[in-house]
């Protein structure tokens, strides 16, 4: 048995911030930063980006820890200098090629400089990922080999948002390598791109050409859509504090002390709670930061698009943690799938197994690799690896079996345009995703298998009352669940509204409320604030789940 309560407390402790986003200190910080930012714009007319940089560094030191700031600066320095070196190499290469008279010599020059550029790129990637890997995994690896007393014995401090700013910096280097833009010559401006504070805690992961121009351009207070920004912020707070935080304790209780006599219904309810809790925590934090960033006139990239309305697992991963999915697609999936070896493999498969498999198999392998990486990124533990592989394999299988499914649908005369089919796909995908959560949430792999076994073979829903009796939820825990359920209904209602209108914009419902009649906007804000306030009476919850990833 694993002490899940302890692991939850430990994980919350790891992710706890020095300054809570739900605090007077943060609100004052935000108000102060906005005031200075727009005053600078109004009085001086330029250089607002300097205020953003100062704000981001102050945020990092107060919400995270100043002791790890040098990691951010080091990553920024490496990823700033590398592309400048690459640009210099390009210039030198062009000059040498122009000076060469022979076509063969020009080709040799190009090959030589391309090799050197690859080395520079590799060095940058090694430094960035090396820091990340060392801080995240080194202690765990030593512990697994019996060379450390515990997984945290080395006392390595994990910088706030290390994965997110590392991935973002790496995307900058790779895009600069591919010549997508001219590298930034001003280190301070590049540091701002890396350390922009709303994205630090848990993303989204931005591309340079989308974020940098916004950070560096001037903004006016009169252009800020204040209502939308504030509503989005408060909506995110509701998801985090009135939904996610309230479910942590009851869910941990349901997963503690389980055994082969635990009815499957208990695991099902716990995993459904986890489903809601994880979404509320992650997307709630993202919404808060989307709102905060838009107050500065900087629109961040979306990271969630109603993932539980997905029609397939692949669709789910285009709606959940969107920026990570895009990053993996552009920097892992395509580079791997388009390697010479995979192309050869594809041709081989086409010759021996047909066009469909020839086209699909390389993509399947790439998908499995991507999700293996995503699993390992979550943590160097078996259950995360299994979870990642599960997602990769299901998506791969869906791709491979697509002709079979198409033939089956045709034979059964299923009209895939009908709403009933869409509903079936949504429910099916929800089940598939939640099966994956069994491996994600339950830290012991054996116990997650046990939980699945109990779910499928010993569901025993009639033991529901016995389950409640054994769990002995306190009065407060029951109220927490009820309040979280109300918050879930609110989130479902807004998600359904957005989904039916096919909105892609994050929190479009909030934008609509803000731009509509004032009483409706006020009523919505009051509802969110009321739920957040009620949640405050329980004194539960901690930091963000992904804060120290």
């Amino acid at each position, binding site marked *: 048995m694993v002490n899940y309560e302890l692991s939850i407390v430990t994980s919350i402790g790891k992710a706890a911030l020095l300054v809570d986003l739900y605090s007077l200190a943060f609100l004052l910080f935000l108000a102060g930063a906005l005031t200075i930012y727009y005053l600078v714009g109004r009085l001086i007319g330029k250089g607002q980006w300097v205020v953003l940089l100062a704000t981001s560094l102050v945020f990092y030191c107060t919400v995270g820890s100043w002791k790890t700031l040098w990691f951010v600066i080091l990553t920024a320095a490496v990823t700033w200098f590398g592309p400048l070196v690459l640009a210099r190499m390009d210039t030198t290469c062009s000059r040498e090629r122009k000076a060469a008279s022979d076509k063969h010599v020009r080709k040799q020059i190009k090959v030589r400089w391309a090799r050197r550029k690859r080395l520079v790129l590799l060095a940058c990637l090694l430094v960035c990922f090396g820091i990340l890997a060392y801080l995240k995994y080194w202690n765990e690896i030593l512990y697994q080999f019996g060379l450390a007393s515990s997984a945290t014995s080395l006392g390595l401090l994990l910088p706030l948002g290390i994965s997110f700013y590392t991935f973002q910096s790496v995307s900058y280097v790779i895009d600069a390598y591919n010549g997508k833009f001219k590298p930034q010559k001003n280190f301070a401006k590049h540091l701002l791109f890396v350390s922009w504070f709303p994205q630090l805690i848990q993303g989204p992961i931005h591309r340079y050409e989308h*974020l*940098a121009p916004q950070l560096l351009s001037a903004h006016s207070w009169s252009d800020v859509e204040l209502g939308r920004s504030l509503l989005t912020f408060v909506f995110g707070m509701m998801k985090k504090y009135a939904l996610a935080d309230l479910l942590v304790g009851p869910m941990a209780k349901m997963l503690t002390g389980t055994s082969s006599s635990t009815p499957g219904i208990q695991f099902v309810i716990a995993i459904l709670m986890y489903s809601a809790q994880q979404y509320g925590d992650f997307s709630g934090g993202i919404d808060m930061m989307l709102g905060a960033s838009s107050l500065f006139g900087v629109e961040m990239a979306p990271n969630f698009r109603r993932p539980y309305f997905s029609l397939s697992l692949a669709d789910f991963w285009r709606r959940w943690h969107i920026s990570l999915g895009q990053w993996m697609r552009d920097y892992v999936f395509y580079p791997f799938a388009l390697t010479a070896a995979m192309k050869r493999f594809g041709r081989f498969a086409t010759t021996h197994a047909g066009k469909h498999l020839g*086209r699909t198999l390389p993509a399947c392998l790439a998908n499995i690799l991507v999700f293996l990486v995503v699993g390992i990124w979550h943590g160097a533990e078996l259950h995360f690896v299994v979870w990642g592989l599960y997602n990769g394999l299901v998506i791969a299988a869906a791709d491979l079996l697509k002709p079979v499914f198409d033939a089956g649908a045709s034979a059964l005369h299923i009209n895939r345009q009908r709403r009933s089919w869409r509903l079936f796909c949504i429910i099916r995908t929800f089940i598939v995703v939640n099966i994956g959560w069994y491996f994600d949430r339950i830290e012991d792999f054996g116990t997650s298998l046990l939980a699945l076994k109990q779910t499928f073979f010993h569901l025993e829903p009639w033991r529901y009352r016995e389950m409640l009796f054994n769990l002995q939820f306190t009065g407060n825990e029951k109220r927490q669940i009820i309040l979280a359920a109300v918050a879930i209904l609110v989130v479902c209602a807004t998600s359904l509204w957005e989904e039916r209108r096919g909105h892609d914009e994050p929190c479009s419902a909030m934008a609509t409320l803000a731009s509509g009649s004032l009483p409706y906007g006020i009523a919505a804000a009051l509802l969110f604030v009321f739920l957040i306030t009620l949640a405050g009476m329980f004194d539960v919850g901690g930091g963000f789940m992904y804060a120290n990833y």
Partner: protein
Amino acid sequence: MQTTKRTDGDLHNSQANVQHRVQDGAQNGTQDGAQNGTKNDVPQNTRSKRIQSRWCKALCVLIAFVVADVVAGFSLGKYASLSSVAMQDFLDAPSVGTVFVGSSYAQRAFDPIAFDEKQTQLSQDSSVVSNSYNLSTPGETISMTRNAVDLAISRGAQRIVFGLGSQTVKVDVDNNADISYLLARYERDPLALSTALAQRAFSDGNVSNRTSLKMLTPWIYNMVRNGSAFASNLFSRLSGEQRGSAAQKVANNPQWTYVGCGYGNYTTLEVDTEKCHTTASVYGNPPVLDSCMEELAGIADDCKAAGVELIVVSTPHPCFDVLTSGDSYPQVMSKIQQTVVDHGGIYLDFNALKTSCPRAEYGGCHSAQGTDDYTSQLATDSLYTQSDFADFEHMSMSGARKFSRILASYLEKIEDHIDVSDDFYSYDEWDSWSAAHQDQVI
């Protein structure tokens, strides 16, 4: 991942709508920063109107939130919390004599009516005014106790009796309890309440966490928690019902009964036979806080400066609870005693009475007989009976009545300058006390 071929427009495929804001933002400036992003072509009067409209909307929103906060506090905040019962009785009193202060140790140990009855009986003077009040509140921290003492002094109290236990000097801040106290204390003074809450919001321990924002909605610290309590609460507030009887309807434990003069208690025992709680098992042994000792000294100094008699009393616990605390009990209580005496107060520990001790049949939850009957641990000698203790640290209704009469007797002796120190074990001879009661531990 998609198996379709990647195109240049991949980044903006099905998410074209969501990208438009990002693209708009990106296109507002160049990579090296635009010189001027403001829209200077908007006419000045249109901008002024827009700014005015914004201010109006902001004002409407602010008013809506304030009104909602007040309405929520009115309907959901307890009209008659246990703190407000004690406070309102006290503030409405025509005169005050002895005031009992402290946390739940004191709240449930001092019955002012029984105390006054005994005092009158002992003085044999029918003109003695019965004007004792219990101003103690649940979970009250020592800084709030000092606030209560200052209030009592300002209202002319002649004697302050501070009931405490070892945990009193180990907790300096408890927002749940402190806010409840402040809400009751400053119910008639919104400005003072706002100031107190603002100080708390900006304090070092709170400003960087969510407690700071909870100060905007302090009623959540004292909220009704079910439908029937909500209805009763609203009715009581609208009808101006007497606090004591109103509190009986909304108290978290339905067995709380109002007696009078700020005092109420529970009529049932709250023992949990499976968990077998003691002070040591519930609270552990955290260190004594210097800040608490300073507040204790401050209370004594305030009383001395005002010429008010201060009696600091360690309220009775069942013997087994004191025994299971081991050496930490005399160590902590001797510090308290020293501080009180050094600053001019009187200290009495009613767990150290030689003539009687709230005995237990055994000192742990598992007797040699193998029974786990927790309630039998609370059995006592002729002074207290089993039902005089509600749990390991609080007295019941009957126990408070008895103890209050005992206390009145001792205070009468002290008033008559009779030395009562021989009635109590000192902490130097705590080994003797332990040895005398060790037979109760099996």
